[in-house]
Structures are given as C-alpha cells and as structure tokens.
C-alpha cells in the first residue's frame, strides 16, 4: 500500500502544473531565505495566503518547496555577507564567512546547499519511519496526556530557545497560551477577553499573529542604517566539493540525525538544529581550534543539521498536530486551511497524506539543490538588493498575507498589534518561538485540562496514575529544575 501511495504522490508532483509550482516556490523560498530579515516562517506565512486559490495538492507542494528553499537559502547570506539569511543559518556563518574571505565562497555555498539537500533527504526517511510509530503512540493519549504534552512543549521550547534565561522563554510561552484563550472557549462557547468585539469573539487567526511576530520586527530593525559588504562567489571544481562531502559523511549523517531529533521537539526550530550539529562536529573533531576559521565540516554540519530539522518538525505535526518548529507551525495552519487534519487519526483517515508530504519534501530538496546551483552566480546580485527597497515591499506583502486568510481588515490590525508585541519581545530578548507554540497549543491545553477535570470531577489524581503522564511530569519537572541549577547543586553535594 505504501508503494502505491508513494507512486501516486510522485505522479502528482511530476504533473507539469505541480512541477512548475514546486520549482517556482522553491526558487521563491531560496530567494526569501537568502535575504536577511526574511525568515523561513515569514516566507511560509506569506505564501500561505497566496496558495488559497490553489488545489490542496499544489498548495502543499508549494509550501513545502518554500520551506525547504528558505531554510537552505539562508546559507548564502551567511557565507557571503556574514549575516544569516534566516536564524537557521547562524552557525553556518561561523566557518562559511571565513571561507568566503579566503576566496572559497563558491565552494562553501556548494557544500552548504549539498549538505542541506542530503540532510533533508535523510529527514524524509525518518519521517517515513517515525511518523507511523509516533501516531500509534499518540492513540494512547487521553485528555491528561494532551494537556501535559502542550505544557511540555512550551517548557522545553522555552528552555532551548531562550539563550540562557529559560524564565523568559516560559513567560513568552505562557503569554502565547493566554493569547489562544481569547475568543469563545471551546467547551462552553463563553467569550473570554473579547470586550464585546465580535471579531475578537471569533478568536485571533494564527497566520496574522505569525506574520506579525516574525515579519514585523525584522522590518522595523531593517530601518537602522548599517553597512553590508557582499563577498563574491568564486569559481571551484564540483568534484572537489563532492570530495569534501565524502570526507565528511559521518558528520553529515550525525548532523542530520541530530537535526531530526531537534525538529521533533515541539517548537524548537532549525536554528537550534544547526547549532547543535555544529557543536557536535566541533566536539568530536581532532582539530576543534580550526572551527571558526573556515572549516568545511562546520559548514556541512550546520546546514545538514538545520535542513534535516524540516523533516523532524513535520513528524509531530503529522502524528500529534503539534509543530516541531515555527515554520512548521505555519505549515500546520496551512494544512488545516486546505482541509487536512493532521494528528493521531491521520494514518487511519488519510494515510496517503504522509507519503504525499514525504515525496514533496524529497522533490523539494532535489529542486532546491538544482536551483541553488543555477542561481549561485546571481546570488551576489540578489544579496545586493537594498533593504530600504525591500522592506516596504515586504510590509505590503505582510498586509496582503494577513488579509487574504479571512478577507478581514481586522486580521491586518491583529498582525500590526502582534508585530509591535514581537518587536518588543525581540528588543527585550524574549524568544518568539515559545510564544507561537503557546498560541497553537493554547486551545489544546484549555479544552483537554477541563475535559479531564470534568471526567475526574475536579481531581488531579489521574494525572499521577497514568504512565505517559508520569513521563511528561518527570520531564517537565527536570526541565524546570535544571534551569535553577538544582542538578548541579546535587552533583556538588555528592562530590
């Protein structure tokens, strides 16, 4: 059956219309990823509105194409400008830029895009292998488990994205959970925080919030005057590039697997995947001091790690309807907008969807690699576009992207409001990812907790009597205690 689904999916992607959609969207993603300030989340969110009139199959192909393209495209700016095109490519800049300064920019871009492609392909295998397993496990989940899963997601996302102060990540996540409480509640349809406004009573749409949180702050920040110098793409031998890839096979596979694992963790995105993979390769290297001075394996690891997160982030979407990263959250919203219902029942209701997503990912990775090689010569020109020209256009696209979901100016105003919120979060160094995850998981948290309490007549005891709940509780407790140095104190006491 799986083979049939795979063949059907390949047939669908290879139809002339869908192939054109794939190439255009992957190219668009690459360009958006290349341009500093346009993150992958923003790219997918903006394009979601544009796919409104496409068939669901074409829409999913285009969104996955943009996602893969944008994550990979970020490496070009990281290597040639020393400014990551997307946060996912931050680790790539460490060795990519020194390589470009040594006149090996072309080779570095080739290695980065090839590693990105291979990383994505490895993640496709993981999606195929792990999604059915996780889906089976998720069928064991009841209301208590889903409640704790959402809490676990916010806590771990807060821990991993807050750069040292997890309290800020948790605050961000809790505010996100609160935003999701706005509007009629799912159990009693009782209006909360609506203040008599009919539009607010309907709840706040996800896409405008995402565009505001991730796009708006970048636009405002780009108004600052800065000087950027683009290094040129140098010529290189493709065979030399493949030799480096072959020499770094172990690092490539290890980074891809790290990326997949990071991707599976709710809300923790491609940037963490890139950093962890880079760190793992540096730690296991015989010459760690070479890292940061133009080490090929650094570029390869970072890019394989961030791109394989894409597949990893899709696994919890398909099996639990919980996004693994911020761009994946937009993807989840887009899946729902186009009539798909990811979650525990997916493998029973529409098993072909898993294979369709995998084939789309596979094709997007291949298309991305080919397009990246073709456009590499023009990268310098694309990167040379002034942000003073780009950002006003991007803001107009933010307006359009927010409006087209429900055709409401109210959504545009929501985007603006959350843009201001996102800007202040960014200024105060609060991570936006837990906020977004909170918004997505908020209704799950509320409805499942209250449903569980209704069944248990107000008792929290069942939460401590279910094995999966206990695993989540221990994990949440460990994550919280680890941030307050409890384990270190215990270790010291033992010594």
């Amino acid at each position, binding site marked *: 059956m799986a083979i049939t689904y795979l063949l059907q999916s390949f047939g669908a992607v290879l139809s002339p219309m869908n192939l054109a959609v794939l190439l255009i969207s992957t190219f668009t993603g690459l360009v958006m990823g290349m341009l500093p300030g346009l993150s992958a989340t923003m790219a997918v969110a903006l394009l979601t509105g544009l796919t409104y009139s496409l068939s669901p199959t074409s829409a999913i192909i285009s969104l996955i194409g943009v996602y893969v393209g944008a994550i990979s495209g970020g490496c070009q700016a990281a290597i040639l400008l020393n400014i990551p095109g997307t946060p996912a490519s931050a680790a790539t800049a460490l060795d990519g830029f020194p390589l470009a300064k040594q006149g090996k920019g072309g080779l570095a871009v080739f290695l980065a895009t090839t590693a990105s492609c291979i990383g994505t392909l490895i993640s496709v295998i993981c999606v195929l292998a792990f999604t059915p397993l996780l889906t089976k496990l998720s069928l064991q989940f009841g209301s208590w488990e889903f409640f704790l899963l959402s809490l676990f997601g916010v806590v771990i996302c807060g821990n991993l994205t807050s750069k040292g*102060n997890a309290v800020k990540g948790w605050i961000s996540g809790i505010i996100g959970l609160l935003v999701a409480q706005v509007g009629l509640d799912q159990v009693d349809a009782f209006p909360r925080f609506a203040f008599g406004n009919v539009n607010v009573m309907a709840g706040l749409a996800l896409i405008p919030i995402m565009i505001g949180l991730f796009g708006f702050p970048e636009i405002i920040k780009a108004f600052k005057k800065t000087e950027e110098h683009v290094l040129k793409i140098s010529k290189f031998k493709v065979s030399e590039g493949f030799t480096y890839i072959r020499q770094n096979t172990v690092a490539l596979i290890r980074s891809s697997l790290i990326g997949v694992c990071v991707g599976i963790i709710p809300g923790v995105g491609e940037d963490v995947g890139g950093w962890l993979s880079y760190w793992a390769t540096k730690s296991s290297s015989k010459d760690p001091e070479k890292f940061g001075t133009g080490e090929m394996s650094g570029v390869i690891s970072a890019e394989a790690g961030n791109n394989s997160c894409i597949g990893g982030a899709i696994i919890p979407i398909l099996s639990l309807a919980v996004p693994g990263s911020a761009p994946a959250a937009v993807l989840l919203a887009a899946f729902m907008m186009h009539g798909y219902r990811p979650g525990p029942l997916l493998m029973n209701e529409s098993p072909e969807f898993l294979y369709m997503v995998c084939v789309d990912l596979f094709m997007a990775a291949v298309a991305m690699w080919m397009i990246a090689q073709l456009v590499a010569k023009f990268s310098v020109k694309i990167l040379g576009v002034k942000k003073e020209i780009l950002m006003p256009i991007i803001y107009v696209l933010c307006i359009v992207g927010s409006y087209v979901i429900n055709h409401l100016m109210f959504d545009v105003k929501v985007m603006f409001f959350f843009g201001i919120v996102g800007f202040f979060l960014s200024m105060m160094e609060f991570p936006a990812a837990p906020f977004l995850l909170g918004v997505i998981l908020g209704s799950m948290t509320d409805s499942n907790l209250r449903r569980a309490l209704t069944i248990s007549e107000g008792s929290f005891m069942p939460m401590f009597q279910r094995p999966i709940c206990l695993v989540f509780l221990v994990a949440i407790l460990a994550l919280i205690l680890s941030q307050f140095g409890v384990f270190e104190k215990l270790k010291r006491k033992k010594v």
Partner: protein
Amino acid sequence: MEAKKKLQDFLSSIVVFAVSIFILVESYKIYLKAGKVFYLSAAFVPVLLGALLLVLSVVLFLGSIKEGGVSARTTEFQEVWQAMVKDNNSLRMLTGLIMMAIYTFVLLEILPFWLATFLFMFLLMFFLDAGSITKILIITAVMDGLIVFLFQVCFRVPLP
C-alpha cells in the same frame, strides 16, 4: 552586556507583572459571569496561566535586581533612554513605524489598495533614502502593479 540584560529583565518583568494582574482581574470577572464550578469555568485556565505569569515575572524581577538593586536599574534606564532619544536609528525606526501605522489604519481604510500602497511604498522608500526619486517611482509603480496583478488577476485573491 550583562548590565543591558539586567535592564531588559527589569523593564520586562514590570510589564509582565502588570499584564498578569490584568489577566487575573479579567479572569475573575469571567469566573463571576460564567457562574460555574471553578475547575469547569472558562476562567480556570486563564487564572492558572495568569498566576504562573505573575510568579515568573517576580522571579525575573528578583534576578534583575540582584546586583545594584532597583536604584541601579533606574539610573541605567535613564542613561539608555537619553541615548536612545538622541540616536538617529531610533528616530528612523519610529518614523518608519508611524508610516506603517498610517498606511494600515488610515490609508487602507480611505483609499483603494493600489493607491494606498503606491503612496506608502514611495514615501517610505524616499524617507529611507533608497535611491533617486525616479528610481523609487519606477520600483514603486512596478511592485504595486505586480502585487495587484499577481494576487488579484493571477490568483484571484481579493485585496484589502
């Protein structure tokens, strides 16, 4: 760098504290209006989240005043504020933000989308000194036309 972080934490903890109080008060009103047992009420989760937010804001605040106390943070804030007011980049960001607000809340409400967008892009690019007037005019006209053509004609998506 550490001082900057402390100041950020100090300021944000005050804002978060105020937000959490607001949430708790509003949730209490919801609880009264809903008239249900607390754990079944629509206010239950907002109260839990508001309380958590309150606790975390206090933790953040206490961490921020560990070295120097409130007076040190207040002095730092005054210094940062004065530097920010004099900074050209802050002015550029604020002006850009105001232009975006005017476009969103005024121009789009009273003018057709293409005209509002043309005016906004032209004025913002001009303010940001993106190039000569002719260059800005051409880019604005082409991009405006392209957005309208792509969304309304090609994808048949209605625009604001």
